[in-house]
């Protein structure tokens, strides 16, 4: 392992003369940069989450229609945003890796996917916990819920395929094809589900149909969204570092 670390710490010296973003595409440079950056993102995530939770749970007023239950949106909405953003970002990286054969991009896609799946699960879980007291049901076959569930399946399909293929190069490219096919499908899924489900049931309560949001609530939600961003970045950076080490080890064998 020590040999690996010295091998990976040789390159960053070039980066010190003049740091450019494109250098991060090189795994050794990225390894060093991520090692320095992730504690900052982790600390930022903690700070923002503490602030967001304080604003959300203490400062924000009680909703006059839903009571205290609405406070779950401070976790639910950022998680739902992140679940979709992360999928797009992972797919973009996977596409870059497929086209330009960059070494780092597939690793980033792979590092982001578990976090994306986690956020999808959180969004679904908190949504169910909110739906039970508000709608009276844990689950409704509404367009949004269903497409979020399918997003989870797409993540799981990607993770399952990537972990089943032993050859890393093939795993990266096959995973990229699956991710990109999923991106093509996401708008189709969203609209198909929307049209299909509106046939069976009337309009359900959507949060954007509620009275316009209080400023404090919005602030809390945005703080939490930023916290989720920082958390996702920190976790993805750490995971990418692990993947870089794994690959380096495989290449040396």
């Amino acid at each position, binding site marked *: 392992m020590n040999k690996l670390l010295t091998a990976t710490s040789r390159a960053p010296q070039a980066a010190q003369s003049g740091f450019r973003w494109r250098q991060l595409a090189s795994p050794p440079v990225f390894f060093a940069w991520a090692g320095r950056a992730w504690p900052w993102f982790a600390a930022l995530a903690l700070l923002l989450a503490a602030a967001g939770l304080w604003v959300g749970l203490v400062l924000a007023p009680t909703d006059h229609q839903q009571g205290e239950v609405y406070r779950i949106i401070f976790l639910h909405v950022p998680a739902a945003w992140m679940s979709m953003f992360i999928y797009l970002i992972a797919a973009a990286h996977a596409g870059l890796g497929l086209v330009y054969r960059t070494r780092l991009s597939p690793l980033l896609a792979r590092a982001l996917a578990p976090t994306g799946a986690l956020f999808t699960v959180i969004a679904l879980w908190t949504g169910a916990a909110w739906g039970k007291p508000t709608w009276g049901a844990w689950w409704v076959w509404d367009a949004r819920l269903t497409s979020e569930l*399918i997003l989870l*399946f*797409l993540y*799981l*399909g990607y993770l*399952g*395929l990537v972990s*089943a*293929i032993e*050859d890393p*190069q*093939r795993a990266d*490219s*096959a995973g990229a*094809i*699956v991710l990109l*096919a*999923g991106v*093509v*499908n996401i708008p*189709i*899924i969203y609209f*198909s*589900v929307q*049209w*299909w489900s509106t*046939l069976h049931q009337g309009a359900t309560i959507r949060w954007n149909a509620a009275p316009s949001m209080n400023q404090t609530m919005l602030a809390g939600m945005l703080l939490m969204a930023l916290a989720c961003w920082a958390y996702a970045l920190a976790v993805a950076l750490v995971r990418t570092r692990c993947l870089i080490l794994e690959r380096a080890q495989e290449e040396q064998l």
Partner: protein
Amino acid sequence: MLKAVFVREMRLAQRRPAQALGGLLFFVLVGSLFPLALGPDSALLQQIAPGVVWVAALLALLLGQHQLFEGELADGSLEQWALAATPLWLLVGMKVAAQWLIAAVPLLLAAPVLGWQYGMTADAVGVLLAALALGTPSLSLLAALGAALTLGLRGQLLLALVVLPLSIPILIFGSHAVTQASLGLSAAPALNLLGACLCLALLATPWAIAQALRLALE
């Protein structure tokens, strides 16, 4: 070369009819299980028929697809395909077209029987046939993509795990078209969307399958 691929597929299917018709038997069996499990309430059966027929067709088409390219990989003809003057995506498209004729066309022929079992109206059966004719090629292409991606891997469930989420729109549009028809509404929008999905699948998947096969060959 293209003709040779097509003839080979047909001859293989002819020599092993059990394998080719297994999907058909599965389709009819699954379709007949639902009335047995739910009871012979004709109103309920009529309501669930489009979804049941579509899910049965989807599963029947995915069944056994994990071996789609295994023979070619084992005897080396896949490498010859990759080296041939004819582009790989064209050869793959031809193979999938032949597979569609072998696996999906029997389903189309059996679908009216299943529809009548569920008490569907003649209009709805007609729309069901049109929807299956438009939707099953996309499903065959997606299944082939899954087979190419999981070629040589253990675990047949992986194929379903990858392909099922991608095939959800086709399932939704397909059963939506039939539901509309059985309610006496126009099925044209859903059929148009199925056609659009087919265009997209025809455009993108042969290339993706070829790419995935090259990965498996490396």
